[in-house]
Protein backbone atom coordinates (compact mmCIF):
# COMPACT_ATOMS: atom_id res chain seq x y z
CA UNK A 1 0.00 0.00 0.00
CA UNK A 2 1.10 3.57 -0.64
CA UNK A 3 3.74 4.83 1.75
CA UNK A 4 2.07 8.17 2.27
CA UNK A 5 -1.40 6.71 2.50
CA UNK A 6 -0.20 3.99 4.82
CA UNK A 7 0.83 6.60 7.29
CA UNK A 8 -2.32 8.55 6.86
CA UNK A 9 -4.63 5.64 7.28
CA UNK A 10 -2.37 4.34 9.98
CA UNK A 11 -2.98 7.49 11.93
CA UNK A 12 -6.56 7.39 10.83
CA UNK A 13 -7.09 4.01 12.35
CA UNK A 14 -5.35 5.00 15.55
CA UNK A 15 -7.51 8.04 15.97
CA UNK A 16 -10.67 6.50 14.61
CA UNK A 17 -10.64 3.43 16.80
CA UNK A 18 -8.86 5.23 19.57
CA UNK A 19 -12.03 7.22 19.96
CA UNK A 20 -13.79 3.95 20.51
CA UNK A 21 -11.24 2.76 22.99
CA UNK A 22 -10.82 -0.34 20.80
CA UNK A 23 -7.69 -1.94 19.43
CA UNK A 24 -6.56 -1.74 15.83
CA UNK A 25 -6.15 -5.47 15.33
CA UNK A 26 -9.65 -6.59 14.29
CA UNK A 27 -9.94 -3.93 11.62
CA UNK A 28 -6.73 -4.97 9.87
CA UNK A 29 -7.44 -8.64 10.18
CA UNK A 30 -10.28 -8.58 7.65
CA UNK A 31 -13.04 -9.68 10.01
CA UNK A 32 -16.44 -7.98 10.17
CA UNK A 33 -15.40 -4.33 9.73
CA UNK A 34 -15.54 -1.85 12.58
CA UNK A 35 -17.24 1.06 10.83
CA UNK A 36 -16.85 4.33 12.71
CA UNK A 37 -20.00 6.43 12.30
CA UNK A 38 -18.10 9.68 12.80
CA UNK A 39 -15.48 8.87 10.18
CA UNK A 40 -18.23 7.72 7.84
CA UNK A 41 -20.23 10.90 8.40
CA UNK A 42 -17.22 13.03 7.57
CA UNK A 43 -16.29 11.00 4.49
CA UNK A 44 -19.85 11.10 3.14
CA UNK A 45 -19.80 14.85 3.67
CA UNK A 46 -16.36 15.13 2.09
CA UNK A 47 -17.51 13.24 -0.97
CA UNK A 48 -20.45 15.60 -1.41
CA UNK A 49 -18.11 18.58 -0.94
CA UNK A 50 -15.67 17.39 -3.58
CA UNK A 51 -18.52 16.78 -6.02
CA UNK A 52 -19.68 20.34 -5.25
CA UNK A 53 -16.23 21.50 -6.38
CA UNK A 54 -16.86 20.27 -9.92
CA UNK A 55 -20.60 20.94 -10.25
CA UNK A 56 -21.28 23.74 -9.93
CA UNK A 57 -17.93 24.99 -8.57
CA UNK A 58 -15.51 24.44 -11.42
CA UNK A 59 -18.27 24.79 -14.01
CA UNK A 60 -18.98 28.33 -12.81
CA UNK A 61 -15.35 29.27 -12.22
CA UNK A 62 -14.62 28.48 -15.86
CA UNK A 63 -18.03 29.48 -17.22
CA UNK A 64 -17.71 33.03 -15.96
CA UNK A 65 -14.29 33.47 -17.56
CA UNK A 66 -15.24 32.61 -21.13
CA UNK A 67 -17.12 34.86 -23.50
CA UNK A 68 -20.88 34.89 -23.20
CA UNK A 69 -21.39 32.91 -26.38
CA UNK A 70 -19.56 29.92 -24.87
CA UNK A 71 -20.79 29.84 -21.28
CA UNK A 72 -23.25 26.96 -21.67
CA UNK A 73 -20.75 24.87 -23.60
CA UNK A 74 -18.27 25.40 -20.79
CA UNK A 75 -20.77 24.30 -18.16
CA UNK A 76 -21.61 21.29 -20.32
CA UNK A 77 -17.96 20.23 -20.20
CA UNK A 78 -17.85 20.03 -16.40
CA UNK A 79 -21.27 18.42 -16.22
CA UNK A 80 -20.61 15.94 -18.99
CA UNK A 81 -17.24 14.98 -17.53
CA UNK A 82 -18.91 14.32 -14.18
CA UNK A 83 -21.36 11.91 -15.78
CA UNK A 84 -19.08 9.94 -18.08
CA UNK A 85 -16.34 9.59 -15.46
CA UNK A 86 -18.79 8.40 -12.83
CA UNK A 87 -19.78 5.52 -15.05
CA UNK A 88 -16.25 4.62 -16.13
CA UNK A 89 -15.05 4.74 -12.53
CA UNK A 90 -17.80 2.34 -11.52
CA UNK A 91 -17.10 0.04 -14.45
CA UNK A 92 -13.34 -0.28 -14.09
CA UNK A 93 -11.58 2.91 -12.98
CA UNK A 94 -11.72 2.29 -9.24
CA UNK A 95 -10.48 -1.23 -9.79
CA UNK A 96 -7.46 -0.12 -11.78
CA UNK A 97 -6.54 2.67 -9.40
CA UNK A 98 -7.29 1.39 -5.92
CA UNK A 99 -7.20 -2.39 -5.85
CA UNK A 100 -4.13 -4.57 -5.67
CA UNK A 101 -2.93 -6.34 -8.75
CA UNK A 102 -2.39 -10.05 -8.02
CA UNK A 103 0.88 -9.83 -9.96
CA UNK A 104 2.87 -7.95 -7.33
CA UNK A 105 5.28 -6.67 -9.99
CA UNK A 106 2.55 -5.27 -12.20
CA UNK A 107 1.01 -3.86 -9.03
CA UNK A 108 3.75 -1.25 -9.04
CA UNK A 109 2.10 0.26 -12.08
CA UNK A 110 -1.54 -0.74 -12.22
CA UNK A 111 -4.22 -2.26 -10.01
CA UNK A 112 -6.40 -5.28 -10.68
CA UNK A 113 -9.50 -5.69 -12.82
CA UNK A 114 -11.31 -7.64 -10.15
CA UNK A 115 -13.59 -4.76 -9.23
CA UNK A 116 -15.13 -4.66 -12.69
CA UNK A 117 -18.61 -3.16 -12.15
CA UNK A 118 -17.70 -3.05 -8.45
CA UNK A 119 -18.66 -6.73 -8.18
CA UNK A 120 -16.75 -7.44 -4.95
CA UNK A 121 -17.98 -4.26 -3.27
CA UNK A 122 -20.56 -5.93 -1.04
CA UNK A 123 -22.59 -4.14 1.62
CA UNK A 124 -20.01 -4.65 4.35
CA UNK A 125 -16.88 -4.40 2.22
CA UNK A 126 -14.02 -2.28 3.56
CA UNK A 127 -10.85 -1.18 1.78
CA UNK A 128 -7.52 -1.60 3.53
CA UNK A 129 -6.85 2.00 2.48
CA UNK A 130 -9.75 3.21 4.63
CA UNK A 131 -10.45 0.67 7.34
CA UNK A 132 -12.97 2.63 9.39
CA UNK A 133 -15.51 3.46 6.66
CA UNK A 134 -17.54 1.39 4.19
CA UNK A 135 -15.75 0.73 0.91
CA UNK A 136 -18.80 2.15 -0.88
CA UNK A 137 -17.97 5.51 0.70
CA UNK A 138 -14.26 5.24 -0.10
CA UNK A 139 -15.03 4.31 -3.71
CA UNK A 140 -17.37 7.30 -3.96
CA UNK A 141 -14.90 9.66 -2.31
CA UNK A 142 -12.14 8.65 -4.72
CA UNK A 143 -14.63 8.90 -7.60
CA UNK A 144 -15.10 12.59 -6.88
CA UNK A 145 -11.32 13.07 -7.22
CA UNK A 146 -11.34 11.15 -10.48
CA UNK A 147 -14.09 13.47 -11.73
CA UNK A 148 -12.53 16.83 -11.01
CA UNK A 149 -9.03 16.00 -12.22
CA UNK A 150 -9.84 15.56 -15.91
CA UNK A 151 -12.48 18.30 -15.70
CA UNK A 152 -9.77 20.79 -14.71
CA UNK A 153 -8.11 20.36 -18.10
CA UNK A 154 -11.06 22.07 -19.81
CA UNK A 155 -9.67 25.44 -18.75
CA UNK A 156 -6.88 25.21 -21.30
CA UNK A 157 -9.04 24.34 -24.30
CA UNK A 158 -11.99 26.60 -23.61
CA UNK A 159 -13.95 28.11 -26.51
CA UNK A 160 -12.73 25.80 -29.26
CA UNK A 161 -13.06 22.05 -28.66
CA UNK A 162 -15.78 19.80 -30.04
CA UNK A 163 -18.05 18.40 -27.35
CA UNK A 164 -17.80 14.89 -28.80
CA UNK A 165 -14.00 15.09 -28.81
CA UNK A 166 -14.07 16.43 -25.27
CA UNK A 167 -16.10 13.48 -23.99
CA UNK A 168 -13.71 11.05 -25.68
CA UNK A 169 -10.76 12.89 -24.21
CA UNK A 170 -12.17 12.77 -20.68
CA UNK A 171 -12.82 9.05 -20.98
CA UNK A 172 -9.48 7.97 -22.39
CA UNK A 173 -7.48 10.31 -20.19
CA UNK A 174 -9.19 9.01 -17.05
CA UNK A 175 -8.42 5.40 -17.85
CA UNK A 176 -4.99 5.78 -19.39
CA UNK A 177 -3.51 8.62 -17.35
CA UNK A 178 -5.35 9.31 -14.09
CA UNK A 179 -6.04 5.74 -12.96
CA UNK A 180 -2.46 4.50 -13.37
CA UNK A 181 -0.92 7.58 -11.74
CA UNK A 182 -3.39 7.42 -8.85
CA UNK A 183 -2.30 3.81 -8.40
CA UNK A 184 1.38 4.72 -8.48
CA UNK A 185 1.06 7.17 -5.63
CA UNK A 186 -1.98 6.11 -3.61
CA UNK A 187 -3.13 2.73 -4.79
CA UNK A 188 -0.05 0.71 -3.88
CA UNK A 189 2.28 1.62 -6.74
CA UNK A 190 5.93 2.50 -6.98
CA UNK A 191 5.83 6.25 -6.26
CA UNK A 192 4.01 5.75 -2.99
CA UNK A 193 6.35 2.93 -2.11
CA UNK A 194 9.28 5.21 -2.84
CA UNK A 195 7.93 7.56 -0.19
CA UNK A 196 6.47 10.34 -2.30
CA UNK A 197 4.39 12.62 -0.10
CA UNK A 198 1.15 13.69 -1.76
CA UNK A 199 -1.55 14.14 0.85
CA UNK A 200 -4.46 15.04 -1.39
CA UNK A 201 -3.17 15.24 -4.92
CA UNK A 202 -0.59 17.88 -5.72
CA UNK A 203 0.99 15.68 -8.36
CA UNK A 204 -1.75 13.08 -8.88
CA UNK A 205 -4.46 15.68 -9.39
CA UNK A 206 -3.15 19.16 -10.11
CA UNK A 207 0.24 18.72 -11.74
CA UNK A 208 -1.31 15.89 -13.70
CA UNK A 209 -4.30 17.89 -14.94
CA UNK A 210 -2.14 20.96 -15.49
CA UNK A 211 0.35 19.06 -17.62
CA UNK A 212 -2.45 17.63 -19.74
CA UNK A 213 -3.82 21.16 -20.05
CA UNK A 214 -0.52 22.49 -21.35
CA UNK A 215 -0.25 19.73 -23.92
CA UNK A 216 -3.88 20.16 -24.93
CA UNK A 217 -3.66 23.91 -25.54
CA UNK A 218 -0.50 23.39 -27.59
CA UNK A 219 -2.11 20.66 -29.68
CA UNK A 220 -5.33 22.62 -30.24
CA UNK A 221 -3.65 25.95 -30.91
CA UNK A 222 -4.82 29.42 -30.00
CA UNK A 223 -8.36 30.75 -30.02
CA UNK A 224 -9.32 32.81 -33.08
CA UNK A 225 -8.57 36.42 -32.24
CA UNK A 226 -6.25 35.55 -29.37
CA UNK A 227 -4.04 38.53 -28.56
CA UNK A 228 -6.09 40.97 -30.61
CA UNK A 229 -9.68 40.65 -29.36
CA UNK A 230 -10.57 41.47 -25.78
CA UNK A 231 -11.34 38.09 -24.27
CA UNK A 232 -11.91 39.32 -20.75
CA UNK A 233 -14.27 37.19 -18.63
CA UNK A 234 -17.89 37.85 -19.53
CA UNK A 235 -19.26 37.51 -16.01
CA UNK A 236 -16.92 37.32 -13.03
CA UNK A 237 -19.88 36.98 -10.70
CA UNK A 238 -20.11 33.37 -11.86
CA UNK A 239 -16.38 32.90 -11.40
CA UNK A 240 -16.49 34.27 -7.86
CA UNK A 241 -19.29 31.86 -6.98
CA UNK A 242 -17.27 29.07 -8.52
CA UNK A 243 -14.06 29.98 -6.72
CA UNK A 244 -15.93 30.22 -3.43
CA UNK A 245 -17.48 26.79 -3.86
CA UNK A 246 -14.09 25.39 -4.84
CA UNK A 247 -12.68 26.84 -1.62
CA UNK A 248 -15.47 25.48 0.57
CA UNK A 249 -15.49 22.12 -1.17
CA UNK A 250 -11.74 21.81 -0.86
CA UNK A 251 -12.09 20.94 2.83
CA UNK A 252 -13.61 17.69 1.67
CA UNK A 253 -10.66 17.34 -0.67
CA UNK A 254 -7.84 17.96 1.82
CA UNK A 255 -9.33 17.27 5.24
CA UNK A 256 -11.25 14.40 3.68
CA UNK A 257 -7.97 12.87 2.58
CA UNK A 258 -7.36 11.99 6.22
CA UNK A 259 -10.05 9.39 5.53
CA UNK A 260 -11.03 9.81 9.16
CA UNK A 261 -12.55 12.52 11.30
CA UNK A 262 -9.62 13.20 13.59
CA UNK A 263 -6.71 15.52 14.42
CA UNK A 264 -5.15 15.00 10.98
CA UNK A 265 -8.31 16.15 9.27
CA UNK A 266 -8.38 19.17 11.55
CA UNK A 267 -4.80 20.18 10.82
CA UNK A 268 -5.32 19.68 7.09
CA UNK A 269 -8.38 21.94 7.21
CA UNK A 270 -6.52 24.67 9.07
CA UNK A 271 -3.55 24.50 6.70
CA UNK A 272 -5.87 24.69 3.71
CA UNK A 273 -7.67 27.77 4.94
CA UNK A 274 -4.45 29.61 5.80
CA UNK A 275 -2.62 28.84 2.56
CA UNK A 276 -5.62 29.79 0.43
CA UNK A 277 -6.06 33.17 2.04
CA UNK A 278 -2.32 33.86 1.89
CA UNK A 279 -2.12 33.01 -1.80
CA UNK A 280 -5.12 35.17 -2.66
CA UNK A 281 -3.57 38.15 -0.88
CA UNK A 282 -0.16 37.50 -2.45
CA UNK A 283 -1.60 37.45 -5.97
CA UNK A 284 -3.77 40.48 -5.20
CA UNK A 285 -0.89 42.59 -3.90
CA UNK A 286 1.43 41.46 -6.69
CA UNK A 287 -1.12 42.60 -9.24
CA UNK A 288 -1.91 45.75 -7.27
CA UNK A 289 1.75 46.71 -7.46
CA UNK A 290 2.37 45.67 -11.07
CA UNK A 291 -0.93 46.56 -12.74
CA UNK A 292 -2.01 49.27 -10.30
CA UNK A 293 -5.35 47.62 -9.58
CA UNK A 294 -6.33 44.50 -7.61
CA UNK A 295 -8.59 42.60 -9.98
CA UNK A 296 -11.30 40.29 -8.70
CA UNK A 297 -10.08 37.71 -11.21
CA UNK A 298 -6.67 37.95 -9.55
CA UNK A 299 -8.05 37.50 -6.06
CA UNK A 300 -9.96 34.35 -6.93
CA UNK A 301 -7.16 32.98 -9.10
CA UNK A 302 -4.80 33.44 -6.19
CA UNK A 303 -7.14 31.60 -3.86
CA UNK A 304 -7.28 28.65 -6.25
CA UNK A 305 -3.50 28.73 -6.58
CA UNK A 306 -3.22 28.46 -2.81
CA UNK A 307 -5.68 25.60 -2.67
CA UNK A 308 -3.71 23.78 -5.33
CA UNK A 309 -0.31 24.30 -3.72
CA UNK A 310 -1.40 23.27 -0.23
CA UNK A 311 -3.12 20.13 -1.51
CA UNK A 312 -0.08 17.81 -1.36
CA UNK A 313 1.16 19.43 1.86
CA UNK A 314 -2.07 19.86 3.79
CA UNK A 315 -1.67 16.87 6.08
CA UNK A 316 2.07 17.23 6.56
CA UNK A 317 2.74 20.88 7.41
CA UNK A 318 2.02 23.14 10.37
CA UNK A 319 0.17 26.47 10.09
CA UNK A 320 3.35 28.48 9.50
CA UNK A 321 4.41 26.10 6.74
CA UNK A 322 0.97 26.52 5.18
CA UNK A 323 1.31 30.29 5.37
CA UNK A 324 4.63 30.28 3.50
CA UNK A 325 3.42 27.80 0.88
CA UNK A 326 0.40 29.99 0.28
CA UNK A 327 2.40 33.17 -0.16
CA UNK A 328 4.77 31.44 -2.56
CA UNK A 329 1.91 29.98 -4.57
CA UNK A 330 0.23 33.35 -5.00
CA UNK A 331 3.31 35.03 -6.40
CA UNK A 332 4.59 32.14 -8.50
CA UNK A 333 1.22 31.38 -10.11
CA UNK A 334 0.67 35.08 -10.78
CA UNK A 335 3.93 35.15 -12.67
CA UNK A 336 3.17 31.94 -14.55
CA UNK A 337 -0.30 33.02 -15.61
CA UNK A 338 0.48 36.63 -16.44
CA UNK A 339 4.12 36.78 -17.39
CA UNK A 340 5.34 33.32 -18.42
CA UNK A 341 2.23 32.66 -20.53
CA UNK A 342 2.77 35.89 -22.44
CA UNK A 343 6.46 35.12 -22.78
CA UNK A 344 5.98 31.64 -24.22
CA UNK A 345 2.84 32.57 -26.11
CA UNK A 346 0.64 29.49 -25.68
CA UNK A 347 -3.09 30.04 -25.21
CA UNK A 348 -3.78 28.34 -21.88
CA UNK A 349 -7.13 30.07 -22.01
CA UNK A 350 -8.18 29.95 -18.36
CA UNK A 351 -4.74 29.12 -16.95
CA UNK A 352 -5.26 25.48 -16.10
CA UNK A 353 -1.54 24.88 -16.53
CA UNK A 354 -0.53 28.23 -15.08
CA UNK A 355 -2.40 27.62 -11.84
CA UNK A 356 -2.88 23.85 -11.46
CA UNK A 357 0.25 22.63 -13.19
CA UNK A 358 2.66 25.17 -11.78
CA UNK A 359 0.91 25.35 -8.42
CA UNK A 360 0.74 21.58 -8.12
CA UNK A 361 4.44 21.13 -8.85
CA UNK A 362 5.35 23.95 -6.49
CA UNK A 363 3.26 22.42 -3.74
CA UNK A 364 4.73 18.97 -4.25
CA UNK A 365 8.25 20.33 -3.91
CA UNK A 366 7.47 22.59 -0.95
CA UNK A 367 5.89 19.59 0.78
CA UNK A 368 9.38 18.13 0.81
CA UNK A 369 10.62 21.33 2.39
CA UNK A 370 8.02 21.91 5.09
CA UNK A 371 6.70 18.44 5.94
CA UNK A 372 6.89 18.07 9.71
CA UNK A 373 7.18 14.92 11.73
CA UNK A 374 5.20 16.54 14.51
CA UNK A 375 2.18 16.90 12.23
CA UNK A 376 2.37 13.56 10.49
CA UNK A 377 4.65 10.91 11.95
CA UNK A 378 5.66 9.70 8.52
CA UNK A 379 6.31 12.96 6.71
CA UNK A 380 9.93 13.96 7.38
CA UNK A 381 10.77 17.16 5.50
CA UNK A 382 13.96 19.02 4.79
CA UNK A 383 13.67 22.20 6.79
CA UNK A 384 12.15 21.04 10.08
CA UNK A 385 13.22 17.43 10.23
CA UNK A 386 16.48 17.85 8.34
CA UNK A 387 15.67 15.26 5.72
CA UNK A 388 16.86 16.64 2.35
CA UNK A 389 16.36 13.19 0.83
CA UNK A 390 12.63 13.84 0.75
CA UNK A 391 13.24 16.63 -1.73
CA UNK A 392 14.74 14.17 -4.17
CA UNK A 393 11.74 11.87 -3.86
CA UNK A 394 9.42 14.80 -4.50
CA UNK A 395 11.41 15.70 -7.60
CA UNK A 396 11.05 12.16 -8.91
CA UNK A 397 7.36 12.33 -8.19
CA UNK A 398 6.94 15.58 -10.13
CA UNK A 399 9.12 14.44 -13.02
CA UNK A 400 7.43 11.06 -13.35
CA UNK A 401 3.92 12.49 -13.36
CA UNK A 402 4.84 15.29 -15.77
CA UNK A 403 6.66 13.00 -18.14
CA UNK A 404 4.13 10.19 -18.35
CA UNK A 405 1.15 12.54 -18.47
CA UNK A 406 2.63 14.75 -21.20
CA UNK A 407 3.41 11.85 -23.51
CA UNK A 408 0.19 9.92 -22.93
CA UNK A 409 -1.96 13.04 -23.28
CA UNK A 410 -0.28 13.95 -26.55
CA UNK A 411 -0.94 10.51 -28.02
CA UNK A 412 -4.55 10.45 -26.83
CA UNK A 413 -5.26 13.86 -28.38
CA UNK A 414 -3.64 12.96 -31.68
CA UNK A 415 -5.68 9.80 -31.93
CA UNK A 416 -8.92 11.62 -31.15
CA UNK A 417 -8.01 14.30 -33.67
CA UNK A 418 -7.61 11.68 -36.38
CA UNK A 419 -10.81 9.86 -35.52
CA UNK A 420 -13.34 12.56 -34.65
CA UNK A 421 -11.40 15.83 -34.90
CA UNK A 422 -10.59 18.02 -31.92
CA UNK A 423 -11.54 21.51 -32.94
CA UNK A 424 -14.72 23.20 -34.11
CA UNK A 425 -14.79 25.09 -37.42
CA UNK A 426 -13.75 28.73 -37.52
CA UNK A 427 -17.36 29.80 -38.17
CA UNK A 428 -18.61 27.89 -35.16
CA UNK A 429 -15.86 29.31 -32.99
CA UNK A 430 -16.54 32.89 -34.07
CA UNK A 431 -20.28 32.53 -33.71
CA UNK A 432 -20.11 30.70 -30.41
CA UNK A 433 -20.28 27.14 -29.12
CA UNK A 434 -23.54 27.41 -27.21
CA UNK A 435 -25.82 27.80 -30.19
CA UNK A 436 -23.79 25.61 -32.51
CA UNK A 437 -22.91 22.66 -30.27
CA UNK A 438 -25.91 22.64 -27.94
CA UNK A 439 -28.56 24.62 -29.81
CA UNK A 440 -29.04 26.96 -26.85
CA UNK A 441 -28.14 30.46 -25.76
CA UNK A 442 -28.40 32.57 -22.65
CA UNK A 443 -31.20 35.06 -23.18
CA UNK A 444 -30.24 38.26 -21.39
Amino acid at each position, binding site marked *: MSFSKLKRTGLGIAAGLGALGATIAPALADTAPKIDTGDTAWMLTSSALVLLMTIPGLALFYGGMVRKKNVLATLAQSFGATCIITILWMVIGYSVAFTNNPDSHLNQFIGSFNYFLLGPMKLNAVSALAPTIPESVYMFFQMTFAIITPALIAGAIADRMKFSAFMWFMSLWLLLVYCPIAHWVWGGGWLGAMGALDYAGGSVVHLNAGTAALVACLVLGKRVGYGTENMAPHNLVLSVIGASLLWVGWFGFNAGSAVTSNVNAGMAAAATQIATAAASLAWMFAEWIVAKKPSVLGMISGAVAGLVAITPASGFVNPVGALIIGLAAGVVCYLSAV*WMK*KLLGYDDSLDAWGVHGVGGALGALLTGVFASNAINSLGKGWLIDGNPGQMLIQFYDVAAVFGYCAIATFIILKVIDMVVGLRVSREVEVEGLDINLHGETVHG
Partner: protein
Amino acid sequence: MKLITAIIKPFKLDEVRESLSALGVQGMTVTEVKGYGRQKGHTEIYRGAEYAVSFLPKLKIEVAVKSEMADAVIEAITSKAKTGQIGDGKIFVTPLEQVVRIRTGETDGDAL
Protein backbone atom coordinates in the same frame (compact mmCIF):
# COMPACT_ATOMS: atom_id res chain seq x y z
CA MET B 1 -41.68 68.08 -38.13
CA LYS B 2 -38.25 67.23 -36.84
CA LEU B 3 -36.73 64.16 -35.30
CA ILE B 4 -34.28 65.28 -32.65
CA THR B 5 -31.71 62.69 -31.64
CA ALA B 6 -29.46 63.38 -28.66
CA ILE B 7 -26.53 61.32 -27.38
CA ILE B 8 -26.08 62.07 -23.67
CA LYS B 9 -24.37 60.79 -20.54
CA PRO B 10 -26.59 58.16 -18.88
CA PHE B 11 -26.98 59.82 -15.50
CA LYS B 12 -28.40 62.95 -17.18
CA LEU B 13 -31.53 61.21 -18.42
CA ASP B 14 -33.92 62.19 -15.63
CA GLU B 15 -33.01 65.87 -15.77
CA VAL B 16 -33.44 65.97 -19.53
CA ARG B 17 -36.75 64.15 -19.40
CA GLU B 18 -38.17 66.54 -16.85
CA SER B 19 -37.12 69.61 -18.80
CA LEU B 20 -38.74 68.22 -21.95
CA SER B 21 -41.96 67.42 -20.14
CA ALA B 22 -41.91 70.98 -18.90
CA LEU B 23 -41.82 72.07 -22.54
CA GLY B 24 -44.89 69.97 -23.19
CA VAL B 25 -43.11 67.18 -25.04
CA GLN B 26 -45.24 64.16 -24.26
CA GLY B 27 -43.05 61.34 -25.34
CA MET B 28 -39.59 60.15 -26.18
CA THR B 29 -37.74 56.98 -26.96
CA VAL B 30 -34.46 56.06 -25.29
CA THR B 31 -31.82 53.58 -26.40
CA GLU B 32 -28.70 52.35 -24.64
CA VAL B 33 -25.77 52.93 -26.99
CA LYS B 34 -22.01 52.88 -26.90
CA GLY B 35 -20.21 56.02 -27.91
CA TYR B 36 -16.83 56.60 -29.43
CA GLY B 37 -15.36 60.08 -29.54
CA ARG B 38 -12.88 62.48 -28.06
CA GLN B 39 -13.60 61.28 -24.55
CA LYS B 40 -11.20 58.44 -24.05
CA GLY B 41 -12.40 55.26 -22.39
CA HIS B 42 -11.11 53.01 -19.67
CA THR B 43 -8.58 50.29 -19.65
CA GLU B 44 -9.85 46.92 -18.56
CA ILE B 45 -7.34 44.65 -16.86
CA TYR B 46 -7.24 40.96 -17.63
CA ARG B 47 -4.42 38.66 -16.58
CA GLY B 48 -2.09 41.63 -16.47
CA ALA B 49 -2.94 42.74 -19.99
CA GLU B 50 -4.71 46.07 -20.37
CA TYR B 51 -7.47 46.45 -22.95
CA ALA B 52 -8.60 49.93 -23.96
CA VAL B 53 -12.36 50.10 -23.75
CA SER B 54 -12.83 52.86 -26.30
CA PHE B 55 -16.62 52.70 -26.37
CA LEU B 56 -18.39 54.35 -23.48
CA PRO B 57 -21.98 53.84 -22.35
CA LYS B 58 -24.27 56.63 -23.54
CA LEU B 59 -27.99 57.08 -23.96
CA LYS B 60 -29.64 58.04 -27.23
CA ILE B 61 -32.83 60.05 -26.85
CA GLU B 62 -35.16 60.40 -29.83
CA VAL B 63 -37.88 63.03 -29.76
CA ALA B 64 -40.24 63.82 -32.59
CA VAL B 65 -41.50 67.40 -32.41
CA LYS B 66 -43.25 70.03 -34.46
CA SER B 67 -40.68 72.10 -36.34
CA GLU B 68 -41.44 75.23 -34.37
CA MET B 69 -40.59 73.47 -31.12
CA ALA B 70 -37.24 72.17 -32.30
CA ASP B 71 -35.10 75.04 -31.06
CA ALA B 72 -36.65 75.05 -27.62
CA VAL B 73 -36.10 71.31 -27.31
CA ILE B 74 -32.50 71.55 -28.47
CA GLU B 75 -31.93 74.37 -26.01
CA ALA B 76 -33.45 72.37 -23.16
CA ILE B 77 -31.40 69.27 -23.88
CA THR B 78 -28.18 71.23 -24.27
CA SER B 79 -28.59 73.02 -20.97
CA LYS B 80 -29.62 69.96 -18.96
CA ALA B 81 -27.20 67.43 -20.43
CA LYS B 82 -24.16 69.65 -20.17
CA THR B 83 -21.48 68.91 -17.60
CA GLY B 84 -18.82 70.85 -19.46
CA GLN B 85 -16.57 67.83 -19.65
CA ILE B 86 -15.58 65.97 -22.76
CA GLY B 87 -18.16 63.33 -23.63
CA ASP B 88 -21.33 65.30 -23.00
CA GLY B 89 -22.55 64.25 -26.40
CA LYS B 90 -24.29 65.54 -29.50
CA ILE B 91 -27.66 66.51 -30.81
CA PHE B 92 -28.70 65.62 -34.34
CA VAL B 93 -31.70 67.11 -36.13
CA THR B 94 -33.24 65.29 -39.10
CA PRO B 95 -36.33 66.03 -41.13
CA LEU B 96 -39.44 64.06 -40.27
CA GLU B 97 -41.94 63.67 -43.10
CA GLN B 98 -44.72 61.84 -41.39
CA VAL B 99 -45.79 60.55 -37.98
CA VAL B 100 -48.55 58.07 -37.19
CA ARG B 101 -49.98 57.09 -33.82
CA ILE B 102 -50.58 53.40 -34.10
CA ARG B 103 -53.38 53.30 -31.55
CA THR B 104 -55.58 55.83 -33.34
CA GLY B 105 -54.13 56.20 -36.80
CA GLU B 106 -53.85 59.94 -36.13
CA THR B 107 -51.05 61.47 -38.12
CA ASP B 108 -48.45 64.20 -37.88
CA GLY B 109 -49.10 66.91 -35.32
CA ASP B 110 -51.98 65.03 -33.73
CA ALA B 111 -49.84 61.97 -33.38
CA LEU B 112 -47.26 63.60 -31.15
